[in-house]
C-alpha cells in the first residue's frame, strides 16, 4: 500500500515537472546559431543535400564511430550473456524440434526478403541525398535477417562471416577517418574524395562510402544480436 502511495507521488511530481515544461515551451521562430551554421555549411562545405547525414557522418562522425562501438559491445555482450550455457534454456521451453513456420510465412519471406534487401541498399546509398543513411539501412537489413530467421528457424547464420565483415567495415571506417587527417582537414573529413556535383548520386565526397560501411557494420551487428536470442537448435546440441 505504501509502495503504491510513493508511486503515485512520484508520478504526480514528474507530471508537474513535465507540465511546467510543456506550458513554458514556445515554438522557435528561427534556428539557433549552431543549427543555422550546420544548415548553411553542410551543403556548402560537404556538398551533401541531407544536412542530418552530413552532421552524422562528418561533423559528428566521431560520435557515430563511438556509437557503432557501443553497438559492437552490445552484440558481444548479448552473445556472452546468452551463449554461456544454452542447454537448460532449450530444454526448459520449446519443443524438442523447433516448430516449422507456415507456408504463408515462408512464401512471404521469399517474396519480401529480396525487396527488403534492395530497399536497404537504396536507403543506404541515398543517405546523402534524401532521408536515409547507414544506420537506418543497417536496421532494415537486420529486419530482413529477422524475417528469414522467422521463416526458416533451422537456418544457421554464418556468424564468423558476419563478424569478419563487420570488423573489416569498422577498420575501413577508421582508415577513412585517418585518411581525412592526412589528405583533408581532420579525422573523418569527407573531402578525401572529390565533392562532385551537388545533388548527384556520386557526390558529397566520402559520405556515401562511409554510409555503406556504416550500413554493413550496423546490419551485421544487429544480425549477430538477433541470432544471439535464438535458442540452441536440437541438431547442434547433438554435435556438442
Amino acid at each position, binding site marked *: 500500500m505504501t509502495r503504491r502511495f510513493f508511486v503515485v507521488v512520484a508520478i504526480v511530481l*514528474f507530471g508537474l515537472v513535465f507540465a511546467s515544461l510543456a506550458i513554458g515551451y514556445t515554438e522557435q521562430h528561427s*534556428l539557433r546559431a549552431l543549427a543555422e551554421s550546420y544548415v*548553411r555549411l553542410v551543403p556548402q562545405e560537404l556538398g551533401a543535400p541531407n544536412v542530418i547525414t552530413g552532421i552524422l557522418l562528418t561533423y559528428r562522425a566521431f560520435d*557515430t564511430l563511438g556509437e557503432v562501438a*557501443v553497438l559492437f559491445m552490445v552484440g558481444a*555482450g*548479448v552473445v556472452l550473456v546468452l551463449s554461456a550455457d544454452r542447454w537448460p*534454456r532449450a530444454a526448459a521451453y520449446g519443443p524438442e524440434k523447433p516448430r516449422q513456420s507456415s507456408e504463408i510465412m515462408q512464401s512471404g519471406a521469399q517474396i519480401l526478403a529480396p525487396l527488403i534487401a534492395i530497399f536497404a541498399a537504396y536507403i543506404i546509398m541515398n543517405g546523402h541525398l534524401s*532521408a536515409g543513411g547507414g544506420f537506418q539501412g543497417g536496421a532494415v537489413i537486420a529486419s530482413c535477417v529477422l524475417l528469414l530467421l522467422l521463416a526458416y528457424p533451422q537456418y544457421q547464420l554464418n556468424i564468423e562471416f558476419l563478424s569478419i565483415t563487420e570488423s573489416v567495415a569498422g577498420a575501413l571506417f577508421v582508415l577513412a577517418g585517418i585518411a581525412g587527417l592526412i589528405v583533408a582537414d581532420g579525422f573523418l573529413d569527407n573531402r578525401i574524395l572529390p565533392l562532385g556535383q551537388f545533388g548527384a548520386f556520386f557526390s558529397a565526397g566520402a559520405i556515401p562510402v562511409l554510409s555503406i560501411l556504416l550500413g554493413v557494420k550496423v546490419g551485421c551487428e544487429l544480425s549477430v544480436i538477433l541470432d544471439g536470442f535464438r535458442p540452441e537448435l536440437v541438431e547442434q546440441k547433438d554435435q556438442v
Partner: protein
Amino acid sequence: MISNIVLTTGLLLILIGIWGLLTHRNILRIIIGFSLMGTGTHIVTVAIGYVKNGTAPIIDRVLHMSEAPSRAVDPISSALVVTAIVIGMAVTAVMLAYTIRLYDSKKTLSIDAFTESKW
C-alpha cells in the same frame, strides 16, 4: 502549435513509461516501460527542434539552398535522435538478454523473486 502537441505526447509517453516501470512487477513489462520512456524522450527531442513552418533539412527542389537556414528545422536534434534510437534498441537487447538469464535461474519473470541484490 504542432510541436506543442508532439512535445506533450512525448512527455505523456515518458510519464506512462515511468508509471509502468514503478508499478509492474514483471520484468518484461518493466522493459516495455523503459522503451516507452525512451521513445518519449526521442519524441520530445524532435519536438524541441521544430521551427515554426519549418521543413526537413534536406536541400532539394522544394527547399533551396539559400532559403534553407530560414526554413529548415533544427538538424541537430534529428541527428541526436537517430543516434539515440539505435542506442535505445541496443539497451533493450541487453535488458532482454539478462531477462532470459534471470528466467533461467529462477523460472519466473517476477522482479520480486530477485531479492538477493536488493540492499
